[in-house]
């Protein structure tokens, strides 16, 4: 509960919304049983018109609320794992570059720079074109485009840690350099990379939504991006079909940002 007490109002709001979203994702099969991609009623029902379909139905008669609930699962799953993968890969590369120095550092940082030069979204598109769309490949594709920031931040931190006494002590003890890098330095250098977590999760949510909006998402799952794309075909007559899942996206990303800001502020307050 200590973390909660340290959070400011913004951070608490983010935490509450995110908890609600996680609950929605976990309870989706109970709240909206059955396949969300199956036809469940009359097509193009307006929201609030029918109690059986509170948010209406789409062009094919699929329930919008069920899609929204099941979409939460895809969004959170992909966002969490791709942000985690990006942070892990980035901090490992950053640790190696900063700790090894010299030519290894130069090569690793040139590679990082190359990844930063190509738009992350384009890289994700190219990766999807190679692997085909599914949840694991989406996670791979998104983290390919987003790991570089964590690498830079970790490397900077490692460079300042490298000369500290505890590293010298580990050397004197005869620890293997790689053991020093990953057991002594990385845990201490991970803080700044972890503070990127909120930004990474938010970026991953937006990239996943954009990919599935363009039709490069997992075709067997409901996603908010694919719901927006689906609604776009009837944008003139039923704009709510695109607008409702978009609001879900905005609320989720906003909650992640609020919590992230709240956490980093409470960290700064700590001695």
């Amino acid at each position, binding site marked *: 509960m200590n973390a909660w007490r340290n959070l400011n109002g913004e951070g608490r709001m983010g935490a509450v919304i995110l908890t609600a979203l996680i609950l929605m994702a976990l309870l989706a099969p109970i709240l909206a049983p059955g396949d969300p991609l199956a036809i469940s009623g009359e097509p193009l029902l307006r929201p609030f018109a029918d109690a059986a379909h509170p948010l209406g139905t789409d062009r094919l008669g699929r329930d919008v609320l069920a899609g929204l609930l099941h979409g939460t699962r895809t969004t959170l799953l992909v966002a969490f794992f791709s942000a985690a993968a990006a942070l892990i890969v980035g901090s490992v590369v950053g640790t190696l570059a900063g700790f090894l120095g010299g030519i290894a550092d130069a090569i690793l940082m*040139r*590679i990082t*720079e*190359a990844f*930063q*030069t*190509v*738009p*992350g*979204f*384009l*890289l994700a*598109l*190219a*990766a*999807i*074109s*190679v692997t085909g769309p599914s949840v694991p490949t989406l996670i791979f594709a998104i983290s390919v*485009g987003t790991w570089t920031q964590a690498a830079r931040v970790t490397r900077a931190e490692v460079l300042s840690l490298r000369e500290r006494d505890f590293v010298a002590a580990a050397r004197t003890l005869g620890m293997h350099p790689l053991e020093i890098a990953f057991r002594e330095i990385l845990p201490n250098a991970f803080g700044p990379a972890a503070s990127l977590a909120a930004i990474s999760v*938010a970026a991953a949510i*937006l990239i996943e*939504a*954009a990919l599935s*909006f*363009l*039709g*490069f998402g997992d075709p067997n799952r409901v996603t908010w991006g694919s719901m*927006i794309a689906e609604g*776009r075909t009837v*944008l*003139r007559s039923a*704009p709510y079909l*695109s*607008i409702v899942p*978009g609001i879900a*996206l*905005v*609320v989720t*990303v*906003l909650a992640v*940002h*609020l919590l992230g*800001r709240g956490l980093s502020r409470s960290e700064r307050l700590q001695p």
Partner: protein
Amino acid sequence: MPPLVSLLLKRLLGALPVLAIVLVGSFLLLEAASGDAVDSYVARSGTLDAEQLAQLRQEWGLDKGPAYRFKAYATALAQGDLGWSTAYQRPVGAVIPERLPITLLLMTLATTLAFFIGSLLGVIAGASPGSLRDRFLSVTSLAIYAVPGFWLGLVLIVIFAVDLRWLPVGGIESIASGKSGFARLGDIGAHLILPVTSLAMVYLALYLRLMRDRMGEIWHEPFVQSLRARGIGHWRIVWRHVARNAVLPVVTMLGLQAAAMLGGSVVVESVFAIPGFGRLAAEAVARRDTPLLLGIILCSAITVIVANLLVDLAYGKLDPRVRTGR
């Protein structure tokens, strides 16, 4: 040599190995795809018998290893040949230049809008940190920062093109309008308002926050205290001293965001049916056109490098420490 020139030279030399890594990396990534150019060609243009397939594979060098193909690609590239687009049945080097200018225009307009309005609002917020005005702008910018550009585009279409009918739904200009000169320019401008806004809003919010946060820090610095003690007016300090220093990280961010904005234009161009570079990228992926995709990745890397060079130049103009090398 003046420091600015040596800085530019250093940057250009540093860009070469980066471009080489981009080239090798994306070539390897796309080589890993299952199925080859012949498969995607046949998928569109109907059946061929086994012998014809083998002949086509031999013709396109697909029967040899990736090392052979990379050498062939790099050799052609050195002569300015980007290869043959299988989707468009034209040279990649002819397709990309048709599409790139529209996207560059879109990006330039969006960057300009985001930079000027974002930092102006940032100054208004950061002029008195903690005030009602500041809190309102901070919260609004955080909310805008969470809005995906492509969805914003759809919402803007619903409001301004479908309901109000003030602006066109999509495209870059009216088809067969017969307009020329300023009338045509105005027509293109009207088509660009919504896409530029959708692309710019996220960055506008970002620059607002950046400007505001940096100004909040600068207010605590001793030189500002001393300006205040000398009785210099509030707004003069805001504009001449605080904002002027706070704009530097925003300028740095302009370069860092060039890649992200190019990525964002892929989706925004698809929403507004703009025949630009971004939409070309989506088409290249959808139609499995590997040579085109490779060319697109290379060209976007070059675009990002050039954008960063321009930002470095601007930075040198703004910050005398860079110019004099101190």
